[in-house]
């Protein structure tokens, strides 16, 4: 048996990881990123002569749960046609058995990088509203994202916001009416709780896997998701993540747990919106993303927000900020009148 050098072993690993696109319309260009379950490459669609992003499972699994999850991600994306959600173009199986899908190649920056270039809080809030718009659309179509975080949001070169990586997305029941939609444990192949005594289910993974791994991102994951309470997750779980995201946009810290001395100043109304969205108990949060977005919009318009009961002085201050121009105009007019009267009577 031939001895393989360390270098040969590494080359074999790398070579085996490269997806085999033989027989497809795509030509591999370069590796772009690695996600939780796969790798994203830039590829060229030779038929349409355009660049696409090709997501493929890494070398791990040509079959099984991960493949199902990638397919599900593609199917979820396909039903969410929205300018704020990256569109999927194609899904299939490569010659080596790995499942892949292609999507729009987004040229831009991740939100955490982009936000460094945005100084204005107003601009950041407008950015946040565009994220809410996409997430609200997904919720309206019965899909929870469950992994909203800056790294999963791209801002394109024309300022367009795209919510990416729907690999943890969960379908919600359609029959819940006006109540918050409840996650259907049977909706996602990956999240069926194993049936007792069924050995074939030993590999199915719930949000809390057999090894206690919770899927999601600390800091942005709701407490109920962190507990693995899959069956009771609803839109408010994503609202928690949006609250953390809003706080990140405003303070660069998702959970607001910085040292009091270093804590950046946050307007009381904004603080209240963040706290209400990311409240530990789901019932204390906004009941829907449009409600959260409405509060942020009201703040931007200088109106009272639902999350914060204002004192008289705060109301006065807000009134002043909202009508500052007119107030200053009237004040200037009055000062002028007083001055005119003063000089006329000298």
């Amino acid at each position, binding site marked *: *048996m*031939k001895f393989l050098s360390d270098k040969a072993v590494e080359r*074999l*690993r790398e070579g*085996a990881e490269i997806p085999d696109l*033989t027989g497809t319309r795509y030509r591999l260009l370069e590796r772009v990123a690695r996600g939780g379950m796969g790798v994203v490459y830039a590829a060229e669609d030779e038929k349409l002569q355009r660049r696409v992003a090709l997501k493929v499972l890494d070398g791990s699994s040509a079959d099984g749960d991960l493949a199902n999850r990638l397919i599900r991600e593609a199917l979820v994306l396909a039903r969410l046609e929205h300018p704020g959600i990256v569109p999927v173009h194609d899904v299939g*199986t490569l010659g080596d058995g790995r499942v892949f899908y292609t999507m729009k190649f987004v040229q831009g920056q991740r939100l955490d990088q982009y936000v460094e270039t945005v100084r204005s809080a107003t601009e950041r809030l407008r950015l946040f509203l565009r994220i809410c718009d996409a997430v609200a659309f997904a919720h309206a179509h019965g899909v929870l994202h469950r992994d909203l975080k800056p790294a999963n949001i791209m801002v394109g070169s024309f300022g367009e916001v795209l919510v990416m990586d729907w690999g943890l997305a969960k379908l919600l029941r359609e029959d819940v009416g006006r109540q918050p939609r409840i996650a259907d444990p049977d909706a996602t*192949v990956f999240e069926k709780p194993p049936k007792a005594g069924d050995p074939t289910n030993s590999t199915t993974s719930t949000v809390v896997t057999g090894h206690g791994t919770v899927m999601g991102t600390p800091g942005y994951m709701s407490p109920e998701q962190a507990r693995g309470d899959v069956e009771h997750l609803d839109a408010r779980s994503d609202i928690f993540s949006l609250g953390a995201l809003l706080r990140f946009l405003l303070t660069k810290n998702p959970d607001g747990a910085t040292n009091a001395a270093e804590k950046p100043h946050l307007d009381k109304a904004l603080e209240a919106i963040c706290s209400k969205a990311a409240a530990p108990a789901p019932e204390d949060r906004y009941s829907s993303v449009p409600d959260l977005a409405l509060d942020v919009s009201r703040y931007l318009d200088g109106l009272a927000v639902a999350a914060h009961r204002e004192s008289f002085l705060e109301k006065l201050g807000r009134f002043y900020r909202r009508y500052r121009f007119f107030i200053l105009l009237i004040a200037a007019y009055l000062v002028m009148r007083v001055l005119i009267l003063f000089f006329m009577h000298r």
Partner: protein
Amino acid sequence: MNEEEFQPGGDRFPPTRRSVVEAVGSADAEERERALESLCAAYWRPIYKYIRLRWNRPAEAAQDLTQGFFVEVLERGLLKRFDAKKGRLRTYLRVCVDSFVSNEDKAGRRQKRGGNVAHVALDFAAAEEELGGARRMDPAAIPSPESLEEFFEKEWLRSLFSLAVEELREFCNARQRERAFRLFEAYDLEGHDKITYEQLAKDYSIATTDVTNSLAWARREFRRIALDRLRELCGSEEEFQREARATFGGNGR
């Protein structure tokens, strides 16, 4: 398109091998023997090298202990005791090796063994050569337990890939695709950084696209074979998924 329409991998590939952990419990004696042979083929080199380094044994004693360990696996049914829920088969075997060597020391009953693992040729001379300077090692140069664990992992991966490369060679020969294997060997196994597809195309008097296609095919087959062997050497499907991720590029990168 729905999930049922997808048959990832489909029936393109031969059926996957059964895990050695299950196969050693089989009622079929032939299957049991095959399982042990597979286990021995994949693990004897890492175990031999590990004993040499971790236990600082001379070559002859390490050879004896390596063979003795596989006899122990067979006689004491060590694989039957493995619980896939508690960890990886590889880690379990390494712990068993430590325990075996330690017990052998205590009992002072080292003896010549090897009759039952004679089906797998254990080329200790080659393993010793691969180990390089280990013969001249001194106790101070022995790595820490963590790095020994890493060493064992690395040697295990090398062993797995070596077996897969050999199987790929046979596969290519059986399908009259020797040239594809030679290209694979030249580029992926021996290739230095400056070697290019164009250079290979020139060397073999073929088009560059032929080199691309041959290498893509060989890598695909190599990956399939390596994954198939890996599946055989894991205790459960879940372990296989985790191992495969770590083996083919997951690994936290």
